[in-house]
Structure formats: structure tokens, C-alpha cells
């Protein structure tokens, strides 16, 4: 499983879109700190760190699904079934490893903003432990997007529809769920997605599809 996860990670990180997404993420956040380093006037009651986290979550909700779908190799059900046979691994292990590798890649993007989290914590004059607390939903978001992307990859035919479904699910979670329950909710989605992908994979990815066979 470690090698399968490593493979998924390498294949995403080497895609040119991964660099573009990381650069875009950092540029927008840096611009936020530069322009609203003293705090956004309409969010005056919240510390800058909280405001920064809010912006980062919205940004990641749009960037991460794109990276998870677009930068992953175009491995549909047939490729995954083939990979399972080549490596003699159960398809469920293949998809769990793929989700783990994808989550690792997404966490690289999410955690690339760590220096700016520290900077906004300093500006807010909050204890350093608040940085780790603020990073928790960011890491959970990366895990949730990775799990959803792999489930969509197994269950849906087209990458475009996968991207739409994952983006909508992520944006809804980030914007509608209250911050206090967000991490727990996202981890619940990860757990549910893992159950779906493991049970579906061993059934759906056992053999090549008929269209591939002819």
C-alpha cells in the first residue's frame, strides 16, 4: 500500500497543474495578507488568523478538487482493474492507497501556507498553538477532497462530472457547515467515502469492463 500511495503522490506532484495550483494558492493568500493584514473591515470582530483561515478554506475548496481530479492520472475503472491485476493487490487497497497518495499531495498544497498562518497568528497576537488548531480543518479538508475524488473516480465515467460533484460537495461543506463541527463533519465524510470506495472497488474493479474486453 505504501508503494501504491507513493505512486499516486508522485503522479500528481509531477503534473504541471500541481505547481500552478500551489503558486495560485500562495499568491492569493499573500495578497490577502498584504492587503488586509490589519483585518477585513466587515469581519472586525474576528482575529486576523480566523479571517485568514476563512479565506484559505474557500480558496482550497475550489483549488483542491481541481488538483485531485485534473492532476491525477486519467485512470478510470479499467486502468484501476488492470493495476490491481498487475500488482496482485485487491482493488480496495488500490483505491485506499490512491486516496492516501492524493491526500498527501493535497496536504502539500494546503500546508504550503504554513508560514502565512504563523504570520497571521503573530499579527493577531494569539498563542502559537492556535496555528495548529487552525491547520486542523485545512488538513481535514485535504483528506475529504482526496476521498471524494477517488470515490468519484471509481463511480463516475467522466472526469468533468467527477470534478463538478467533488467541487460542489466541498464548497457546500466549507460554506454551509458551522466551523465548530467542520472538522468532525469532514472526517465523517472521509470515513464514509472510505467505506464506499472499499466495498465498491472490490466489486466494480474486479474485472475489466465489457467495453474494454471487446
Amino acid at each position, binding site marked *: 500500500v505504501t*508503494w*501504491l500511495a*507513493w*505512486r499516486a503522490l*508522485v*503522479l500528481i506532484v*509531477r*503534473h504541471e497543474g500541481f505547481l500552478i495550483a500551489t503558486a495560485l494558492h500562495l499568491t492569493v493568500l499573500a495578497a490577502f495578507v498584504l492587503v488586509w493584514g490589519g483585518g477585513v473591515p466587515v469581519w472586525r470582530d474576528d482575529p486576523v488568523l480566523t479571517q485568514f483561515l476563512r479565506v484559505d478554506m474557500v480558496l482550497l475548496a475550489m483549488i483542491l478538487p481541481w488538483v485531485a481530479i485534473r492532476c491525477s*492520472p486519467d*485512470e478510470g475503472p479499467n*486502468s484501476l*482493474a*488492470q*493495476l*490491481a*491485476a*498487475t*500488482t*496482485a*493487490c*485487491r482493488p480496495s487497497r488500490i483505491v485506499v492507497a490512491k486516496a492516501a497518495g492524493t491526500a498527501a499531495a493535497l496536504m502539500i498544497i494546503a500546508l504550503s501556507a504554513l508560514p502565512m498562518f504563523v504570520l497571521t497568528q503573530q499579527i493577531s497576537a494569539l498563542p502559537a498553538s492556535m496555528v495548529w488548531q487552525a491547520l486542523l480543518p485545512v488538513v481535514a479538508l485535504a483528506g475529504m477532497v482526496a476521498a471524494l475524488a477517488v470515490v468519484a473516480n471509481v463511480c463516475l465515467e467522466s472526469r468533468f462530472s467527477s470534478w463538478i460533484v467533488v467541487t460542489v460537495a466541498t464548497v457546500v461543506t466549507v460554506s454551509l457547515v458551522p466551523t465548530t463541527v467542520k472538522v468532525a463533519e469532514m472526517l465523517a465524510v472521509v470515513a464514509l467515502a472510505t467505506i464506499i470506495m472499499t466495498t465498491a472497488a472490490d466489486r466494480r474493479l*474486479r*474485472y*475489466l469492463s*465489457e467495453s474494454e*474486453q*471487446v
Partner: protein
Amino acid sequence: MYGQVQALAGVSLDVARGECLGVDGAAGSGRTTLLRILATLVRPTSGDVVVDGQDVRAHLFEIRKRVTFVSATSIVGDRLLVEEHARFVAETRTVNRNGGVAASVRQALRRAGLAPGARLESLGSSDRMALALTTGLLAKADILLLDEPFRPLVGSRRALFGEWLTEVNAAGTTMVIATGDDDDARRLCKRVLRLAAGTVVEEPS
């Protein structure tokens, strides 16, 4: 059966342990389907396939650990390097890890004449098949199923892999080689099964 298409009908054969069986036939004769069924990649709609007394439907995942299927489409993940792909397959299939995987991968790539640092997406068809064969051989499975292994190979590679496969077969690996070229099959295998339109037209003797 694939929908309304009957790909194979009435095919019955036994392959002894350590044997090399050739499957010869034109495109569309059902030879790839036969290999995919043996590799557990395709579920037969009727009939039985048994490996060492185990039914392939009931013991699919156990049987896959003992079987390697090599075809031009076995390589996926174009952004990997040649050495990374070979190491990945070898590591996932190796049961006994004594730190020798990396060294045996490098040695195998050298023997196959493959550049370890080349990207998979830059490989031509000869290099791709050479890599598929190399990783298939690195997997050290009991049963090796080869789909058209020689057609894409150019230059001295045909002879090189012919020799390599002969060595592996002599060491006890069972092989089934599907090919559209009767000479390739006869060069390596004493018995050749001939297929046409999904049926056996010549039994292996």
C-alpha cells in the same frame, strides 16, 4: 460472451506446470481474451478455469499473486520514470523483502537495454513492451501470460527476450504466449494451440 459477441467457444486445454504453451491466431481469434481469462482480468460467462485445483472465480485474489499478465497495455502512469515503474511493480509483488529489489530492478533494466531515467510517456512501443516484459519477469510469478510480446520489439531485443524467457521457463515458470506469428510461438513453446474466430482449429500436440 461480450454482450452479443461470443469471443471464445468450446476451448478446452491443460497446461502442465513448467510448460510453455503457444496460442496462435489472427487478430480477433480470441487469443487475448483467452489470456485475460487466465489472468483473471475477464470473467468467463460459462465454463471453468482452474489453477492448481483452485477455481479462478472463487480464488481470484490468491491466483493473481501467482500469475503475471504482460501486454502492451500493462503499463499505466506516464509521469513515472522507467526505474520507478519497475521498482513499484517489483516492490508490490515481492513477498520476500531482503533489500535486494532495487538492485535486481537495476540489473534487469540494464539487461533489457532500458534507460532507468526515461519517462514512461517518452517510450516508444518497443521500449514499452520491453519494460512490460522486464517488470513481468521481475514479478517472479509462477505463471507468466504474455500477449503479443514480440511484435513491438525491434532489433536485438527479440532475441534477447527470447533467451530470457527460455531461461525463466527452464527454471520452472509456466508460460502461455499469445502471438499472431507462428514462428515466435514455435521458437519458445513445444506445444501450440491455434485459434480462429474463438474456436480451436488445431489442438496442441
